[in-house]
């Protein structure tokens, strides 16, 4: 039975890998001839920079917001916990396009106009890309981190308390490091999603070339122009960034802690 299941698992793994691999291969085959051109294209270069910049910033903000929210949800008795959690979960099943439209409505409202006059422009402005990423990613990221914090044994935090750690430091020195893997995984998913997001972005900031054009927008525009090969070339660049990103997370995820006697140090 053991081997039976193993074989099935292997087969499924191979099938899934082939399914995804073949699809990606399509990108590489189509995109490769134009890759050089894409690299040299000023617009593409700008899009790469803007994508990296906005997605990195939005990922950091997303984590900085998600961690305290997850803390509130799992470690305090904040009275609005339940309602907050429900509200935050709502956008998950909505198409990004709709979320973009929502943001457009919100930030075009008198309140949004006030913000703009105060110097924080969102609509048609690169800031909006970050906002779009945030509304797309926050619900997922918060959810994953809540799951992670829930797994941490609260007694270890209490022990940290008896050793003199305040609630905050218990959290920083025990809860957070024990959730490290899950947080890293959440970071990677968030970052990936931010890099690839264009539905909400397009709606909120449009696709002004050399101003609000991210790599996915660039791809969308190219596909919309029937320029599939250039689109695929940009997609190959995204793929490269993605591989790099995986490398980075892998680096942070290196196992330093031994969790098992069977392992050797």
């Amino acid at each position: 039975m053991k081997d039976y299941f193993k074989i099935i698992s292997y087969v499924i793994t191979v099938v899934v890998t082939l399914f995804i691999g073949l699809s990606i291969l399509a990108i590489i085959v189509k995109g490769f001839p134009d890759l050089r051109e894409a690299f040299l294209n000023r617009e593409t270069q700008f899009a790469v920079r803007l994508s990296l910049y906005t997605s990195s910033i939005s990922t950091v903000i997303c984590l900085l917001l998600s961690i305290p929210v997850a803390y509130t949800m799992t470690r305090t008795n904040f009275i609005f916990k339940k309602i907050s959690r429900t509200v935050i979960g709502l956008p998950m099943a909505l198409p990004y396009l709709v979320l973009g439209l929502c943001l457009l409505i919100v930030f075009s409202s008198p309140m949004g106009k006030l913000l703009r006059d105060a110097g924080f422009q969102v609509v048609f402005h690169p800031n909006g890309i970050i906002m779009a990423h945030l509304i797309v990613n926050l619900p997922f990221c918060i959810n994953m981190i809540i799951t992670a914090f829930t797994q941490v044994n609260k007694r270890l935090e209490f022990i940290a308390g008896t050793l003199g750690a305040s609630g905050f430091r218990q959290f920083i020195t025990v809860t957070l490091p024990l959730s490290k893997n899950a947080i890293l995984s959440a970071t990677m998913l968030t970052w990936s999603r931010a890099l690839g997001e264009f539905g909400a972005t397009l709606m909120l900031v449009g696709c002004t070339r050399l101003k609000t054009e991210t790599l996915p927008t660039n791809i969308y525009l190219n596909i919309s122009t029937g320029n599939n090969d250039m689109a695929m070339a940009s997609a190959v660049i995204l793929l490269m960034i993605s591989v790099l990103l995986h490398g980075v997370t892998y680096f942070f995820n290196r196992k330093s802690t031994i969790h098992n006697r069977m392992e050797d140090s």
Partner: protein
Amino acid sequence: EEPSEETVPVLEGHDLMIYCGAGMTNPFEEITQLYKDKTGCEMNVTYANAGQIQSQINTAQEGDLFIAASADELVPVQDVVTRSENLVLHIPVLAVQKGNPLNITGLSDLVRDDIRMVLGDGESVPVGKIANKALADAQIAGQVNVVATLTTAPALATALESDEADATIIWKENAKSLSIVESPEMDKYIKTVVAASLEYSQDDEAVENFLEFLDSDDAKNIWTKNGYEIAE
């Protein structure tokens, strides 16, 4: 007009696969529904923006017809177009916020620095291409304050409605809740909606018949009702 003069063949059991520009969803939906009711022909219409449709046609290599917002959209698929028919006129207009609060009277006004413009993307969006051409012809390209380029005509309209911009160039049917600047300058950019039959089609009978129907008054009425104009 009397629609039921002609004898309508029964196309029960036939089906058509049609690509249609997303901007024309409303009228075309009505037209196909009417056609289906009349003939019993199964109508599979898929809507998307022109570029996406071109990708789908070239990659999937199937489908019977492509309804495009202008003949320009046929270029990337021209090798597989067997026949194309002009349907109705697609009218681009200079649109401003309701009531024209900034008192814009024509393209030349757009250089004023209190006017924020939004335009369609100049390469991927048909109205965007038209706008670029119009601005260039008016010799004001580069002098107008374009705050953003967007990807669909309705999004441009929405931008004006929510006071994020003051003027734009869009199709007439998108400007229902805006004011249109009546200026003849835009007339030369009028496009024609075309229906192109594709070589992948396997059902000539149904294609022929539907193309005929598109030429009928029944179909044309629906177009005009939605803001399009009949070609002369």
